[in-house]
């Protein structure tokens, strides 16, 4: 269950990443941020974001054009 949610639908690069970063800033270690996006580029971008920031991408899926991610804030 996510601790916080971010609706990034309709937003294009780099806004989903920037909004996610901002949302994570206000969260504590171990909390999970759920994100919905429609930017097809976001699939690779959230992967790269997590690789580089150390946050954990615990879920990534797509359903009829809506991408869903869960990111666990790093310690």
């Amino acid at each position: 269950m996510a601790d916080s949610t971010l609706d990034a639908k309709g937003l294009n690069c780099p806004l989903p990443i920037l909004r996610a970063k901002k949302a994570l800033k206000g969260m504590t270690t171990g909390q999970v941020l759920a994100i919905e996006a429609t930017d097809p580029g976001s699939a690779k971008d959230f992967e790269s974001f997590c690789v580089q920031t150390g946050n954990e991408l615990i879920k990534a899926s797509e359903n009829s054009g809506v991408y869903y991610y869960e990111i666990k804030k790093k310690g």
Partner: protein
Amino acid sequence: MADQKKLAIIATKGTLDFAYPPLILATTAAALDYDVTIFWTFYGLQVVKKERNLKISPLGNPGMPMPVPMPVLVQILPGMEAMATVMMKQKMAGKGVASIDTLLEMAIESEVKMIACQMTVDLFDFKHSELIDGLEYAGAARFFEIAQDANITLFI
């Protein structure tokens, strides 16, 4: 953080389209925990003016997708640049692309450092008061001080 990654960008362009790459890359790098500096020089200074009026021109830009094929002799007509700018802004808003105002705000919010080239400020007779607050004014030597320990340096 001693091991913080650093990005240094030189931004030289002052059109609506070319205002995007430095700001997209700077804000994204900041979100990836980079320490980011943008050195605004020549036409790039137009992006950090308080009263921005960035435009895009189809003229001399055969790569710009047009709704209908437009001969160069039509592109030079008065009002074509304004029309292209309005169309581009509408298209960007429709596709959820951030405005330059938004990206600049986000860059400032995420502590992207910005340096304005003092030589260009003199050259174009700009006043510091015409440019956004928080800029540092310096020259090439200052850029090298930043770039020499940057992991990534980009010229745009």
